[in-house]
């Protein structure tokens, strides 16, 4: 029904009623009654015209929309009348809803949004594991990939890719580009099609014919200026000319940048599997295998099949068992692709934040509920009169709820705007190593979430006050209402209950934030075993041009020597695995004089190759023996190694390991004995929170890894390591002008970035806790102030009877403290239960750390006391005579 029609009908109805009355009056007058008497009698007999009109209107169809619109207009008018109240409620709610929306956007982008491949739920990665050796997620050898491809009962298609770096040399600077060598069917398996040209055919994989590439969109834009005629053009990489055969569309990315185990590729080349490696099952573990499950095959069934296949491998091939047939725990595992992007730690962290935001919203709702309730009590008179006029209780409740929902929806809009701004901040200042954080946007899903949360919020804070303030007993209510601000004891309980809940929730958040703060502090100040200040790290990767061992060793020797001549450099050293950048994996170790047990995880060590001055540069203490030196690079030099203290303690407890011998790997004769020449202090590898473990160091001259980090310590304090870069770059170019530098970063920045996620989480959680405490304090203030005003009469009496200011203040503050204590008690119980969830994220702190709990509780009580003090002072300033008079 349109509004014009509606008004017309209402007018007609009024006219109909008037005409009825007219006729009734006329009949009475004709019967002899006096006109005024007839008028009165006719109206009395007719009854309540408004009520009749309303009941009649109720018969009209399409009414609920009309009523709703009426309620909305009425609600808007009421809100506008009391702008202060409306503004306060809006701000509180907008903060709560905004925080939730922002966090949910992140959760949506990182956890919920599916990866951009066709039918992503069917995609799995296939990994090899030697569980007994603590070796997990091994890539596949070429032969293993061939075996996996044959599993057609469970897989529709199986593809593989491996990391491949390309050094593009046809620019002013050599640029290292991350790429991938892929099997023919990778693109079709992902359901991706090129935007230009084609992807690979079996022809392209033949050795010698594999000089073709497919470009990613970004690389095409950067290096070819989005030239649409790029197909057929060539790219100069590592001395070879590669022909461009296709370009992928803008959204496509594989491997996805969120995968923790590899980098995203800017171009793709065909994988080549040499025949001999297939037959002999040799070759590196380099293929990441991705498979698509057949349509009705469950992950369980596929896993069972792969377990059987794993057993087959062990039976048929010797390489899956130890030299004496020991069980290495070989298993083939499948991991769903969408789990690769986010590890369980990140998932937990996000959910904790989400929960925290939810708490903040609940507290905001409680606050606004109190506000609404207080205001509804003040409107009692108006509401009871409406009830007397015939509006049903249901109608009034509906109208009050509409008002709440209207406010909540407005707050939702404001909150969404806040969230948009907040998300920009989150993405800008968030750590780089939270995968997919950069994809956070306010999309449709998020807006639906916001609307749902707003509606729910409106119901939450609107329903109880609405129900409680519609009075049944008319006369009693009118009498009460005319006496001023009053409320029955039951209603008081609601208000206090809400505040106690707020305090409890705020305490839980405070405890969480406090624990994380302590944990972060301990982590950040952990002694890493070396001195990261003033050290620059430069990452290099020698390509196929340095095929010979001695070429690689020589390159790095010359580089270090050259860098050490630079002014401003104190020393430089190389390592294959730099803390915070790359961690080495465990390998079994054979100790001389002991039987080799491949299944014993305790007899494994992580190994890395380091240069002579590395320990000195990093200031890792040398405890025993000597460092590597130039003579370890001599032609027939004995093979040596250095161990760290952890390894010394584990393998040779109570003895001096210098002089002892060991083998890296199994005891077979082809494996050379290494003599230990030194013991160094333990140092952190991997991330800052990693545990210390056994480390075995080999001299680079004897184990010339092509991919190395050069650690360069700046001379003297205050030297900015980054300022050394031009000199370093010149040194590299002097040795090999086509050798790119992959990365350069100060070790201090790496250390800070390593705890980036924890810092981020702490900031957010602390912000939520702060907001929660402020809201709870406001809640306490509100209730105490309201109560004090209500009891003004009683306070006046007390003061007249001799109570002084201090007594009054004590009474009022005491009330506030009682509320806070009740809330704190409930909060402590809840916190003790809930913080268990945080246990995995904490470093060096237990989830039940008493000190944190105590400090935080004291803080909250203090805030509560302050919040009660302000109204207490005002109450203590009451003039007893005025208060008594008003009673």
């Amino acid at each position, binding site marked *: 029904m349109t509004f014009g029609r509606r008004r017309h009908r209402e007018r007609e109805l009024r006219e109909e009623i008037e*005409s*009825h009355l007219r*006729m009734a009056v006329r009949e009475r007058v004709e019967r002899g009654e006096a006109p005024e008497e007839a008028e009165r009698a006719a109206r009395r007999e*007719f009854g309540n015209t408004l009520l*009749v009109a309303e*009941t009649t209107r109720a*018969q009209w169809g399409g009414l609920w929309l009309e009523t709703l619109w009426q309620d909305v207009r009425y609600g808007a008018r009421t809100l506008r009348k009391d702008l202060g109240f409306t503004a306060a409620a809006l701000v509180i709610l907008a903060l709560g809803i905004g925080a939730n929306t922002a966090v949910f956007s992140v959760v949506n982008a990182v956890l919920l949004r599916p990866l951009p491949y066709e039918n992503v739920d069917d995609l799995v990665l296939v990994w090899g594991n030697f569980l007994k050796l603590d070796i997990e997620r091994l890539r596949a050898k070429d032969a293993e990939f061939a075996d996996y491809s044959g599993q057609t009962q469970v897989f529709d298609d199986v593809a593989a890719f491996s990391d491949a770096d390309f050094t593009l040399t046809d620019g002013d600077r050599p640029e290292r580009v991350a790429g991938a060598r892929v099997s023919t069917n990778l693109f079709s398996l992902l359901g991706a099609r090129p935007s230009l040209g084609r992807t690979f055919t079996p022809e392209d994989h033949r050795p010698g014919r594999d000089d073709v590439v497919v470009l990613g969109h970004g690389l095409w834009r950067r290096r070819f200026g989005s030239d649409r005629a790029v197909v057929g053009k060539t790219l100069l990489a590592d001395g070879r000319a590669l022909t461009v055969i296709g370009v992928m569309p803008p959204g496509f990315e594989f491997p996805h940048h969120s995968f923790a185990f590899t980098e995203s590729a800017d171009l793709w080349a065909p994988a080549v599997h040499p025949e001999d490696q297939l037959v002999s099952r040799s070759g590196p573990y380099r293929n990441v295998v991705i498979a698509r499950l057949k349509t009705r095959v469950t992950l369980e069934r596929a896993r069972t099949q792969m377990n059987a296949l794993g057993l087959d491998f062990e039976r048929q091939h010797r390489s899956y068992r130890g030299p004496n047939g020991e069980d290495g725990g070989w298993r083939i595992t499948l991991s769903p692709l969408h789990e690769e992007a986010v590890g369980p730690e990140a998932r937990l962290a996000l959910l904790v934040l989400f929960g925290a935001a939810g708490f903040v919203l609940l507290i905001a709702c409680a606050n606004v509920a109190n506000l609404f309730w207080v205001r509804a009590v003040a409107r009692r008179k108006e509401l009871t009169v409406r009830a007397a006029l015939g509006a049903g209780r249901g109608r009034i409740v509906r109208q009050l709820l509409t008002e709440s929902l209207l406010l909540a929806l407005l707050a939702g809009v404001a909150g969404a705007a806040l969230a948009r701004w907040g998300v920009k901040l989150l993405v800008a200042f968030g750590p780089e190593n939270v995968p997919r954080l950069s994809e956070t946007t306010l999309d449709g899903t998020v807006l639906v979430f916001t609307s749902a949360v707003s509606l729910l919020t409106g119901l939450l804070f609107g329903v109880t006050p609405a129900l409680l303030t519609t009075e049944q007993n008319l006369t009693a209510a009118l009498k009460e209402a005319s006496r001023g601000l009053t409320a029955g004891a039951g209603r008081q309980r609601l208000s206090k209950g809400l505040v106690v809940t707020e305090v409890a929730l705020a305490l839980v958040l405070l405890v969480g934030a406090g624990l994380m703060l302590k944990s972060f502090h301990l982590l950040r100040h952990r002694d890493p075993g070396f001195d990261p200040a003033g050290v620059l790290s430069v990452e290099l990767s020698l390509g196929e041009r340095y095929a010979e061992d001695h070429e690689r060793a020589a390159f790095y020797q010359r580089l270090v020597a050259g860098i050490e001549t630079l002014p401003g450099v104190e020393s430089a050293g190389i390592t294959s695995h730099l803390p915070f950048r790359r961690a080495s994996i465990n390998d079994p170790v054979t100790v001389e004089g002991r039987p080799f047990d491949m299944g014993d995880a305790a007899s494994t060590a992580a190994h890395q190759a380091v240069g002579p001055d590395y320990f000195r540069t990093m200031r890792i203490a040398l405890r025993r023996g000597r460092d590597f030196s130039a003579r370890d690079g001599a032609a027939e030099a004995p093979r040596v190694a250095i161990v760290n203290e952890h390894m010394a303690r584990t393998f040779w407890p109570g003895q001096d390991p210098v002089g002892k011998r060991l083998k890296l790997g199994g005891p077979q004769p082809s494996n050379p004995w290494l003599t230990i020449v030194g013991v160094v202090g333990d140092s952190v590898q991997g991330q800052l929170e990693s545990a210390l473990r056994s480390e075995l160091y080999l001299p680079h001259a004897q184990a010339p890894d092509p991919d190395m980090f050069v650690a360069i310590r700046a001379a003297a304090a205050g030297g900015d390591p980054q300022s050394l870069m031009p000199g370093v770059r010149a040194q590299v170019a002097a040795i090999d002008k086509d050798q790119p530098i992959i990365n350069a970063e100060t070790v201090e920045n790496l250390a800070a970035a390593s705890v980036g996620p924890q810092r981020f989480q702490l900031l957010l959680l602390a912000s939520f806790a702060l907001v929660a405490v402020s809201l709870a304090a406001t809640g306490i203030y509100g209730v105490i102030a309201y109560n004090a005003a209500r009891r003004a009469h009683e306070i006046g009496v007390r003061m007249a009877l001799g109570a002084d200011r201090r007594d009054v203040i004590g009474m009022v503050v005491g009330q506030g403290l009682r509320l806070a204590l009740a809330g704190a008690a409930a909060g402590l119980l809840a916190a003790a239960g809930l913080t268990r969830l945080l246990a995995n994220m904490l470093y060096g702190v237990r989830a039940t750390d008493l000190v944190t709990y105590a400090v935080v509780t004291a803080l909250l009580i203090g805030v509560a006391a302050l919040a009660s003090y302000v109204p207490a002072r005002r109450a203590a300033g009451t003039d007893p005579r005025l208060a008594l008079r008003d009673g």
Partner: protein
Amino acid sequence: MPRRETYQNRVELLQGMLDLLILRTLRWGPRHGYGISQAIRSNSGDVLQVETGSLYPALHRLERQGWVTSEWQTSENNQRVKVYRLTAAGRKQLLSERTRWEQFQAAVAGVLDPAGGEG
């Protein structure tokens, strides 16, 4: 609160009866609302006095259901009145309401005066 509950019960029970009364009254020709309420009162010997709070909602409901139509006319005194008239569907409804009323009567009679004659 108890009063309202019985009222609602009464509405449910007697709504159909009221509709019947109105339709029946209109059978003898179109009338306005006041006229309908007067007709019902006088035809029932002053026993049934239909409250306006029931009459007008009933009239509007009947019109929505298509059993009556209304139009504005000018009365003898040059006043506007809204006059209701039975439709063909309304006539049919009248028949079925009548049957329902007679069934109701029989049911009540059966309760008050069972066939066994227990009184």
